C-alpha cells in the first residue's frame, strides 16, 4: 500500500494508462506547461510530451468535440475540465454527440472518452463556480458517471473509465485533491457500477459520494458517540447505480438518509430514493430523508454559503428524523 493524495492517485491512473496504451492522451486547459490547474497532471507533459498532454485554448465545446471525433476513429482521449462549471459549454458535444453516436449509428461507432475534473463548491467561489452538476449528466442515457471519494477509488475507477468503450464522466472535487489515503501497489481497477460500504453500522444507512461521503463519515462518528451506528454506503458510480449494495444495507438498517451537495430538484438522491422505495418499501421503518444543497444559486457571503450547503449538523438532524428521535 502507498499513502498518497487523491490528486496523485488520479495522476497515476492517467500516467499508467498512457504507458499501457499509446492511444490514450490528455487534453484540457493548463494540463501541460502549468502542470494542471489543480496539479493533477503534474509531470505528465515531461513524460509524455506535447502530442499526448495537450494544452488547449479556453474552448470547451471545441476541444471536447474534437476529443469525441478522435475517439470515433480509435483514440482514447481524457478531457480535463478545469472545473465542471465550464463543462456546461461542452454539454452539447457531450449530450448530443458523445452520448448518442453509438445509438444513432446502430452500434457502428463507439466513443471511448473520459471527461473529468472537479465539481461542486470549494471555498466561496460564488454562483457560477460552485455547482454540482452530477444529476444533469446522470440524466443522459449513453453516459456513465463516476464520483470517487477516496484516493484508492479515484485511481481504480479512473483506470476503468479510461479502458471503458463508452463516454464516462468523472466528478472529482477541489476539496478532495489534497486528501490522503492508502492505494494498492501496482495495476488494479475498480469496476464501474460497484458501490462500497465505507463504514458498517446497524441503525441507519447513509448514502453519499465524493466530498459528501467524507461529511457522512464525520457525521457517523459523532452519531456513534450518541449510540447511533450509521452504515455509510458510497455508490462510487452514479450511473449505473449498484442498487444491490444499497438495498442490502437498507435491508439491514431499515432507514436511509441520502446526502448530496447538489440541488434537491431532480437530484441523484431523488433517483436513489425512488429506487429504494420501489424495490423495498416494505423494509423501510421511516420515510427516506434527503440532505441536499438548498434550492438556490450558491451565494458568496460566508454565512449564506454555509447555509446553502449540506453540513454534518444537517446530516445528523436528518438521521434523527429518520429514527424518530426528533
Amino acid at each position, binding site marked *: 500500500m502507498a499513502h498518497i493524495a487523491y490528486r496523485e492517485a488520479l495522476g497515476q491512473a492517467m500516467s499508467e494508462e498512457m504507458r499501457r496504451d499509446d492511444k490514450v492522451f490528455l487534453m484540457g486547459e493548463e494540463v501541460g506547461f502549468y502542470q494542471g490547474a489543480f496539479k493533477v497532471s503534474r509531470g505528465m507533459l515531461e513524460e509524455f510530451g506535447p502530442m499526448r498532454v495537450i494544452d488547449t485554448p*479556453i474552448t470547451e465545446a*471545441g476541444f471536447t468535440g474534437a476529443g469525441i471525433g478522435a475517439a470515433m476513429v480509435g483514440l482514447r482521449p481524457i478531457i480535463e475540465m478545469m472545473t465542471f462549471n465550464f463543462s456546461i459549454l461542452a454539454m452539447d458535444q457531450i449530450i448530443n454527440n458523445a452520448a448518442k453516436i453509438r445509438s444513432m449509428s446502430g452500434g457502428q461507432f463507439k466513443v471511448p472518452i473520459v471527461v473529468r475534473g472537479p465539481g461542486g463548491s470549494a471555498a466561496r467561489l460564488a454562483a*457560477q463556480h460552485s455547482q454540482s452538476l452530477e444529476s444533469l449528466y446522470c440524466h443522459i442515457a449513453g453516459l456513465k458517471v463516476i464520483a470517487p471519494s477516496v484516493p484508492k477509488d479515484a485511481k481504480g475507477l479512473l483506470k476503468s473509465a479510461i479502458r471503458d468503450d463508452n463516454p464516462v464522466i468523472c466528478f472529482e472535487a477541489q476539496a478532495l485533491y489534497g486528501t490522503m489515503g492508502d492505494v494498492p501497489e501496482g495495476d488494479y481497477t475498480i469496476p464501474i457500477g460497484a458501490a462500497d460500504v465505507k463504514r458498517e453500522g446497524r441503525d441507519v444507512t447513509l448514502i453519499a459520494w465524493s466530498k459528501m461521503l467524507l461529511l457522512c463519515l464525520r457525521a457517523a462518528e459523532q452519531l456513534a458517540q450518541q449510540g447511533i451506528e450509521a452504515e455509510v454506503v458510497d455508490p462510487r458510480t452514479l450511473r449505473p447505480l449498484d442498487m444491490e449494495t444499497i438495498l442490502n444495507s437498507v435491508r439491514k438498517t431499515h432507514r436511509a438518509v441520502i446526502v448530496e451537495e447538489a440541488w434537491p430538484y431532480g437530484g441523484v438522491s431523488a433517483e436513489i430514493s425512488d429506487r429504494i422505495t420501489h424495490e423495498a418499501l416494505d423494509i423501510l421503518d421511516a420515510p427516506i430523508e434527503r440532505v441536499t444543497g438548498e434550492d438556490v444559486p450558491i451565494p*458568496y457571503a460566508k454565512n*449564506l454559503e454555509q447555509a446553502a450547503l449540506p453540513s454534518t449538523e444537517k446530516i445528523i438532524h436528518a438521521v434523527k428524523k429518520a429514527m424518530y428521535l426528533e
Partner: protein
Amino acid sequence: MTSKQKLPLLEFLRQMTLIRRFEEKAAEMYALGKIAGFCHLYIGEEAVAVGSIAAANPDDYIVTAYRDHGHALARGLEPKRVMAELFGKATGVSKGMGGSMHLFDASRNFMGGYAIVGGHIPLATGIGFAMKYQKKDQVALCFFGEGSVPSGNFHEALNLASLWRLPVVYICENNRFGMGTPVERSSAIYDIAHAARAHDMPFHHVDGMDVIDVYTQMKEIIDGVRSSKRPIFVEARTYRYMGHSMSDPAHGHYRTKAEIDEQKKRDPISTLQKRLLEAKEITPEEVAKMEREIQDIVLESVEFADKSPEPPLSALTEYVYSP
C-alpha cells in the same frame, strides 16, 4: 499637444491610483482571510478601464469579466461598497451575494462581472440590440480577456452585432496570458484584433499601458459607434503584474520575474505621473496629497466593509426569483 492639455489627466491619474491602492489593500485583506474565493487583480491594466470608461457617457452600459474591480471603480461605484462586496457583506454592491467576480450596479448601468470566460460577451450584444430596438443612443462597452477570443461565445456574439449593426464596443484586454497560457499558445492569430475581420467588423489597437492613448482613441471610437450604430473591436495591449488570481503565482512555469519587471517600466500610473510632473501640471506636493486622500478612501472602505453586517439568512432565497 494642445488638444491633450484639455484632457482630464489629473482625474485619470487619481482614478488609476485609486484602483491600484484599492487592490493592493484587497490583496492584504485576502491574505488576512477577510476576502475569500477567487479574487483577480487588475494591477498593471488600470489605464484600459479608466481611459475607456472616461470616454463613454455615464449612461453607456458596461459589461465585463471577473477581473472587474477596476471597471467598477472607474465607473464610479463607491469604493466602500465594492470593498464590502469583496468582504461578502450586506452593504456590498451586490449585497454580498456575488463577491469579487460579480460586481453589479444597476443604478450606474454597470451590468456585471462574470466568471465564465466569454460567457458575458453575448450579453453586451443583447444590450446593443435593446438600444437599437428602443431607438436609444447609448452604447455598450464589453471588456474581456484575450483568452476568450477563441471561444464560440465571442464569435457568435460578434457576428450578430455586425450582422444586425448594433452599438457595441468590444474591448479585448490583451494582457498576453490566460492564466498560465501565453496568447501565442492559445490563438492561431497573434494579432488578436484580426479576429474582428472574420465578422467584417472594423478594429483598432490602443496602447493599454497609456491612458492618454486609450482615452483619445476610445473617445473617437465610442462617438463613432454611437452615430454609425455599427460595432467596433478594440484590442488594448496591456499587462498583468500579479498572478492570474490571488491563488496563483505571479511568475513560475509561464513567465519570469524579469519579464514582469521589464513590463513595469511602462507602468501606466508612474508614466503619467512623471509626465505631469515634468510638464509642471502637478507638483510633488499635490501628488502626495492625492495619495493621502486615496489612502483615506481605501482605509475607510476597509473599515466600512469590516463593520458592515453579513447578509441576513433570508437573503439566501430572496433574490432567486422576481416576485
